[in-house]
């Protein structure tokens, strides 16, 4: 495991009882079990608690501006198709400020894995509400209960064109690791949502301040319903549907791009006009 960890950056910044440590641990175990060539992996993150994860993985890694991790990763993949970018970021980063980049990267079916730590709020900046905060939940910016409707992230990912979509919680460690392995090896846009505990911010305002209680809650309300219609895969205080929801094949963007460039170059070669050969 040490091989995959940037040990100079440890200890990490996360609070006791936070699910982000589980995500890091399971991601590193997934790489270890896959014997993944870490020189071919680029871990990219945005801003927020989980945004620090790119510092902890002993890979090429980049910590971008808020919400822009995916757009950066698209730039990497487009010019270096042999590399695999993995974006690990939070629900606010990926689906509020970065929402546009998410739907378009999924639509392109570019070979990038996105792992989302969904803790229902902006934990790093004081527990504000975000695009996944459940209706009626309390946060520092929804003092009288959230009146908005949250995104169903697996439904959004599936509708936007992702070829692999799964949701687990931070207590489903083994199944989470298996999904991470599938996602990293999947050719195309893959998405793994991880519902995580946030005792310090979301938890203490919603009767989940005790880390053990938070984990018990996840265990009690989670039901595995793999491959049901993602629209029915709800996330509610009394029910969280987990499982794999999409696993399909579709032509991938960086391969299509290279194929298209090669065609252009083949035509030039016929005319004797080719100067530079594509990668």
């Amino acid at each position, binding site marked *: 495991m040490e091989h995959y960890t940037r040990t100079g950056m440890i200890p990490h910044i996360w609070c006791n009882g936070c699910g982000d440590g589980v995500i890091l641990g399971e991601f590193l175990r997934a790489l270890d079990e896959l014997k993944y060539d870490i020189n*071919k992996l680029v871990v990219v993150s945005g801003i927020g608690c989980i945004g620090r994860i790119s510092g902890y993985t002993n890979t090429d890694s980049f910590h971008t501006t808020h919400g822009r991790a995916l757009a*950066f990763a698209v730039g990497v993949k487009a010019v270096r198709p042999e590399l695999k970018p993995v974006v690990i970021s939070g629900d606010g980063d990926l689906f509020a400020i970065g929402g546009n980049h998410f739907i378009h990267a999924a639509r392109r079916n570019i070979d990038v894995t996105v792992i989302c730590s969904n803790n229902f709020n902006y934990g790093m900046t004081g527990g504000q509400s975000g695009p996944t905060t459940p209706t009626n939940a309390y946060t520092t910016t929804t003092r009288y209960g959230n009146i908005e409707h949250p995104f169903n992230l697996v439904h959004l990912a599936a509708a936007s064109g992702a070829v692999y979509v799964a949701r687990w919680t931070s207590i489903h460690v083994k199944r989470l690791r298996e999904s991470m392995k599938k996602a990293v090896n999947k050719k195309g846009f893959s998405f793994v949502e991880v519902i995580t505990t946030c005792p310090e911010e979301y938890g203490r305002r919603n009767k989940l301040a005790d880390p053990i209680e938070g984990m018990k809650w996840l265990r009690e309300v989670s039901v595995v319903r793999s491959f049901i219609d993602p629209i029915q895969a709800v996330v509610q205080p009394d029910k969280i549907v987990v499982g794999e929801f999409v696993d399909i094949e579709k032509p991938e963007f960086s391969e299509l791009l290279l194929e298209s460039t090669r065609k252009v170059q083949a035509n030039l070669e016929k005319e004797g006009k080719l*100067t530079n050969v*594509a990668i």
Partner: protein
Amino acid sequence: MSRRLPEVGGVYLQMEDEIASMAAVIGASYAGVKSMTATSGPGFSLMQENIGLAAMTETPCVVVDVMRAGPSSGQPTKTSQQDVMQAKWGSHGDYEIIALSPSSVQEMFDLTIEAFNLSETYRCPVLVMTDEIVGHLMERLTIPKPEGIHLADRKRPAAPPSEYLPFRAGEDLVPEMAIFGEGYRFYATGLTHDETGHPQTDSPEEHAKLVQRLCDKIRKNVNKITKVERIFLDDADICIIAYGSVARSALSAVIEGRGKGIKIGFLRLVTLWPFPEQVVEEVAAQVDKILVPEMNYGQMVREVERSAGRRKVESLPKLGDALHTPQEILAHALS
């Protein structure tokens, strides 16, 4: 470019917005290729966030802004030079940037290459600040043979991965740059960081050290980076300072003035940022009057005043999709 780049083995990407374009440009540069994007007006505003990230993470990259009239949507496709201060100060925080200002089709070609060379040499974003008039010009272009073109490349790490510190710089203040996928397995962040790349968000010393280096690697090379064009300046009493398409009118005005025996000279700013302070100071010491015609409400004139003093400097602003005529410039120079 979407037609040309695949022909030469490059990659053209149409992103969902200009924020994403700038982020993808940085990703592509860290993946080891020379990357650029181009925009106008509102798009340049959207790119500022990640231009700051490029400055902070010392990413070689090029941004072309074909200036149109603002603020906001302003006058699409109509000319202006209203973004020249935004070029310097557009993203938050302290940083230095390089911005070039082409005046012709030939210079669009030459300075785009120069922009890449500077960005690779100093590891910073370089802006090509042109305007709609130059952008839509059709005139003769000589494309040199490839062997006649000088291309600079970023300094690559000399040390093996185990000894590589991604943000350690030597005397030239520019760190060696590893690229993704070569086993260096380094980390870069938009947070304040030390030489190892690790975040240092609580250390005043590390923050000062980093920001000073980001600025000084450009400030200390102002004379190497900046280019100006001097015409008829040796005996001049009046100097016109201009850039971009306005420089073409200004040069005509100066030639016309000389034809009438007036001691008028011309200084063209090829580099806008870093500002060639010393050159302007020297010109100011020699002439009685400096006129700065610009297609905005007076922007670079502030920088000229800073170097030349306010007494000698006069602004000649022009707004609303109109280029100064040579006659107008000459009349103001003589008034």
